[in-house]
């Protein structure tokens, strides 16, 4: 193994290693992130329809639990409900223990994918945590549809 005789060479080697690791990190961010499905789109029901999301593609669904839509199957563990952003709504099915804060009319974020029947099969459901916290992405983007006058003054991006 050759020693590093001069300061310049030492600096060069350190730089090369650092750049190599940084390149690896960049690769990680761009390529691997996409491959492993780490970057989940955050969609609301009407966007799901607009973008014609493919069956099986994972994404996060945000919205409100439609009032009167929650039903529980006979096995006691599977829940079916509809998530709405007031303009459109999407049927969701989830097997597991619901977060204790899950309520009709409240914000909810679920993660999963559409199945062939157009039902969003969720493997995680996050509900609103407390009165100071709305799960991000659950506030309807097309608020006019909810009859909310404040919607008219909200920003163009809908938040």
């Amino acid at each position, binding site marked *: *193994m*050759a*020693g*590093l*005789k*001069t*300061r310049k060479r*030492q600096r060069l*080697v*350190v730089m090369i*290693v*650092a750049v190599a*690791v*940084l390149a*690896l*990190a960049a690769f*990680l*961010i761009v390529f*691997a*992130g996409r491959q*492993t*499905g*780490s*970057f*989940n*789109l*955050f969609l609301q029901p009407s966007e799901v329809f607009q973008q014609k999301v493919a069956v099986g593609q994972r994404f*996060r669904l945000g919205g409100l639990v439609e009032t009167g839509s929650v039903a*529980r199957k006979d*096995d*006691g*563990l599977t829940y079916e409900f509809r998530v709405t952003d007031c303009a459109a709504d999407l049927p969701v099915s989830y*097997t*597991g*223990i*619901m977060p*204790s*804060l899950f309520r009709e009319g409240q914000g909810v974020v679920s993660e999963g994918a559409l199945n062939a029947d157009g039902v969003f099969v969720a493997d995680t459901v996050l509900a609103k*945590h*407390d*009165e*100071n*916290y*709305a*799960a*991000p*992405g659950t506030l309807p983007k097309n608020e006019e549809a909810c009859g909310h006058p404040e919607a008219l003054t909200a920003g163009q*991006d809908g938040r």
Partner: protein
Amino acid sequence: MIAELGHFATILALVLALLGATVPHVGIARGDSRLMAVADNAAIGQFLMAIIAFGALMYSYIISDFSVYAVAANSHSAKPMLYKIAGVWGNHEGSLLLWILMLTLFAAALSLKGRKLPQRFRTRVIAVQSALVVGFLLFILFTSNPFVRLDPAPFEGNGLNPLLQDPGLAFHPPMLYLGYVGLSVAFSFAVAALIEGEVTPLWARWVRPWTLVAWMFLTAGIILGSWWAYYELGWGGWWFWDPAENASFMPWLVATALLHSAIVVEKRDALKSWTILLSIVAFSFSLLGTFLVRSGVITSVHAFANDPARGVFILGFLVVVIGGALTLYAWRAPKLTPGGLFGLVSRESALVLNNILLSTFAGVVLVGTLYPLVLEATGSGQISVGAPFFDFGAIVLMSPLIVALGFGPLLAWKRGRLPRAATTLLPALVVALVVGLFTYWQTAGGVVMTAFGLLLATWLLASVAMEIAERTQLFKNPAGFLRRLRHLPRASWGMSLAHSGVAVLLFGITISEAWTEEKLVIMQRGDTAEVGDYSVRFDGVAPVTGPNYTAIQGHFYASPKSGGADIMLEPQDRLYTDPVMNTTEAAIHSMLSGDLYAVIGEAAGGGRWSVRLYFKPFVVGLWLGAAMMVLGGLLSLSDRRLRVGAPKAKKLSAEA
């Protein structure tokens, strides 16, 4: 009256901090040691004032004085005493005051414990620390004063978020803040060194114990938070890559890098400019973490209720502190004389690699945390960066680190010999490969990552053992082994213990991730379900009442298939009254072999309940590993304390 006293003490602390941040610099410029001494006195004065202010706030919480705004907004008379006290820092205003208390604590400690530092340099350090105190005090007085009175007072408070009413979380913030704030000392040292234009090995020797203290608290704080998430959120997970978690993880990564690079400065007088930069960056990440959870920029489960005015203030403060320090760095860093040369294979190189990998990982976490923000700002829609991204980053960047970690301590400074280190480590490699391949074969080639994780963990543990054996000449000269073992410096034990802690942590992660068994079932009284090597019988539910909640408690008896006593599990589904909220209290029975974890869900009619059962093998490894890391730090610290201020020792091959 007490609240006004607290308010007054806060203002007085501000005055003292302003004096302490300015006068000493004048003193140095004029060479007037009386003016320089203002730094020490102001530091101690600030600390006393901060104690009074914090004590006043705590007193208001304890007696439930709802005429104080912060108390009314966050406390409740029916709350248990522990949570009345923990409630002090369970919200924005109080936690900020706690932050200030700790900042002044470190300033006072510097002035009392740092007597051996040259006066000029110590004065600079304390003055910089005081300037930080000024910023935070202005923040609290102008935007988040906890002592504001309500008139008339409400007759009852709003209560504390029930999720936060938990012993683990009561101590998590103070630990974490001690870590965050402890890094301010490294920051002040770095800025002082830049002002003085000189970084010496002695500088590194001074800064290291402080960084080590901060790092220990940070480690403990993070793991307490993780432990809380594990048993309180009821999902069985312990790390979620939530923005607030990342905010505490990034400073930890950089602090870890700093600990290691400071060794190179101390022993070899190299990497000086980089170490200074790390000191600044580590504290910047602490500030960034504070900013992210308070500004409303990122919404997270952990976020404080916030308002934009505060966000703008703290952002301005951030820009002044970090931007100022980095400008100073850009200006003065070229003045630092470059240090000693080292070979491509050497302890220095190993530590440089450690630094590159740790900092890059911190960068990856930063990108993952902020990427959604960038996309949202550019209007490209909302996304979330999920755990797979971070997990993948951890695997890619931390695996080489662990491989290198085996070699590092065996390489000599300046120029090491790889073949020699490799010979020493051969047994470790063999053991690791056997474990890895056996696992791969056992799981029928199913889970490559599990085999790989176990391989790495075994490698690390075995190479730590080999390193100790090598150093004590266990094989070459067994006779004197015990004597030499006893005479290993404590810092060396600290290093070995901390590194083994990493191995144990990795075992915990790998094993619990790979062999967790999860059962989701509907049970009625008398039903049994199998999970792990246990058969769990459900014995119905009963209502229970706590001080400020009511709950449904399930009774489960888990009997080991191999025989032995039944284990009782009593998970609860709690309904808190103020504020009204449901929480899940998982029942966890921890054993070395694994945790039995039960969560009771909703009633499904007819006396049936949905129940989630887990058997998570060797989760204990996580807490154990982290504890070993902290203890290792403590051991190393106990060694250093003896040596602080000692004459410049030439070479101690102790730590790496």
